[in-house]
């Protein structure tokens, strides 16, 4: 087949892919080139091309700041707690839902527990600020049983816990979906055979149901590695305040404040690049693990 013959048939395929390529070049690859600001003393007037180069100075400055350990520590503590709680919670919830035989009941519960996932952090943040305030309904409830008001969002003792718990509340229901899909794939004959052989309900959960979803558990554990630098930017930006920077400030919120509020583009760009770089390595490793141990490929 000559090139001409090939193109006579295939040219629309190339036309179709052009718009996607243009957008991705402009809004994904051009910003990737823009990471050069991390090595420059960037000024908007001079742009990416003409700002003076200063090597690793932005990184050296950032690593010397006391914030460095703090924002990385907070990011890791919050994200790892969230990942572990979310996955464990989702597995338990999915198993419990699987044991509830009444189909209508199950559907209704699923509908309700997926819902918070689809609300924005502005809406949920508005709700949380309201119910967690000093005179909010939660503190009123605690007052009834003789516990004094707590500053859930305003004290360093509570902030991380509040973030982790509210993140759990928003997402755990939706996280059960993957496990529920895996549970429906377990052959019911296995359960019936085991029951005839005298296995009780909990033995069957332990020896049939759990092994049945083990590949899914392994897969999600591998993929979650790619998320350990994602502590929940939109959530924390909505809920935090200067009083809780010590326990609640994460990499993303620091980059946002430094770069877009204080306009220190180069410093923020360096911190952002550092995060993107580690994040990229983690994602590549997580995909490799997912392929190696769970046979998962996105392509």
């Amino acid at each position: 087949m000559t090139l001409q013959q090939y193109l006579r048939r295939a040219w629309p395929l190339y036309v179709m892919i052009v718009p996607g390529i243009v957008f991705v070049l402009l809004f994904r690859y051009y910003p990737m080139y823009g990471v050069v600001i991390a090595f420059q003393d960037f000024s908007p007037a001079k742009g990416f091309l003409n700002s003076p180069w200063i090597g690793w100075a932005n990184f050296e400055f950032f690593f010397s700041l006391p914030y460095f350990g703090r924002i990385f520590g907070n990011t890791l503590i919050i994200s790892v707690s969230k990942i572990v709680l979310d996955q464990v919670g989702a597995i338990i919830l999915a198993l419990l839902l699987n044991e509830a035989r009444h189909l209508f009941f199950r559907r209704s519960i699923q509908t309700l527990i997926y819902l918070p996932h689809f609300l924005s952090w502005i809406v949920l943040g508005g709700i949380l600020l309201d119910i967690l305030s000093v005179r909010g309904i939660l503190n009123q409830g605690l007052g009834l049983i003789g516990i004094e008001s707590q500053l859930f969002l305003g004290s360093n003792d509570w902030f991380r816990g509040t973030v982790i718990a509210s993140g759990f509340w928003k997402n755990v229901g939706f996280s059960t979906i993957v496990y529920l899909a895996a549970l429906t794939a377990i052959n019911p004959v296995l359960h019936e055979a085991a029951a005839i052989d005298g296995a009780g309900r909990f033995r069957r959960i332990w020896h049939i149901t759990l092994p049945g979803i083990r590949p899914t558990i392994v897969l999600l554990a591998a993929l979650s590695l790619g998320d350990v630098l994602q502590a929940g930017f939109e959530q924390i930006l909505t809920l935090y305040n200067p009083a809780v920077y010590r326990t609640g400030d994460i990499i993303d919120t620091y980059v946002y404040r430094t770069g877009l509020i204080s306009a220190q583009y180069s410093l923020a760009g360096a911190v952002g690049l550092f995060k993107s770089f580690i994040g990229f390595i983690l994602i590549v490793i997580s995909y490799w693990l997912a392929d190696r141990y769970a046979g998962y490929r996105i392509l």
Partner: protein
Amino acid sequence: MIRDKNWFSRLFDSFNYVFLTAFAVLCLLPLIHIFAVSLSGRAPATGGFVSFWPLDFTLENYQEVMGSRTFLRSFMISVARVLSGTSLNMALVILTAYPLSKSPRVFKGRTIFIWFFVFAMLFDGGLIPSFLVVRSLGLLNTLGALILPNAVPIFSVILMMNFFRDVPKELEESALIDGASHWKVLWYIYIPLSLPAIATLTLFAAVNHWNAWFDGLIYMTDNANYPMQTFLRTVIVTLDLTQVGISPQDLQRLSDRAIRGAQIIVATVPILVVYPFLQRYFISGIKLGAVKE
């Protein structure tokens, strides 16, 4: 059907039903509380007397919200954003996924193209360079800043591509032999056969556009251009009463607790309306991303 009749199993069942019900109620309760506040008079709402049932029932808060020009303006910006942004997303997802779903024999260079997109998904230039690019393109304070940077949701492209690959090849081959072009094959074969996947991805794109607020915060320097969720942030989250562009009286009024509740509910209602449709599809949507043999 297996029946476990022993008492321990039954006890477990009762516990299970109670626990799951309690958890589901916990997911809904905060929303019910805010709903009750939004339907209550200002005095009991501000005083913190409302729990899960409105006191001094009134629709005044909603009238106030819907009568506010600043709120309505941001609402309309969000509607425009959802309509234009979702259409753009889906057009690009379908157009990009179709060639990528072909084998390298049919679409030469597929491997290079696919890595072009996957790398763009995995490596993030970061917030600051992205902001500088959008600004240098002159998009600040335009609708374009909200819909163009994420015009190609790459993960959706991959899901769509995987779905297209499961379309039986025989249909396409016979159409091509009969002289149909790839445009016709896409339009008359692939799209009709992929409607469930398209519906799922459309709903997810629409919900994302409706809920997005951070891009509005950074790309709109004049808050008269804020989409609704960004606007709500100034009113219900940061309570920043000094913002220019919104009259202080208007903002003062809108930040009253009962009216804040009404705004939260108004922002939630569109999600609740599409939610049943969303839910019907997302089990199949999830399967798209499941383990491939």
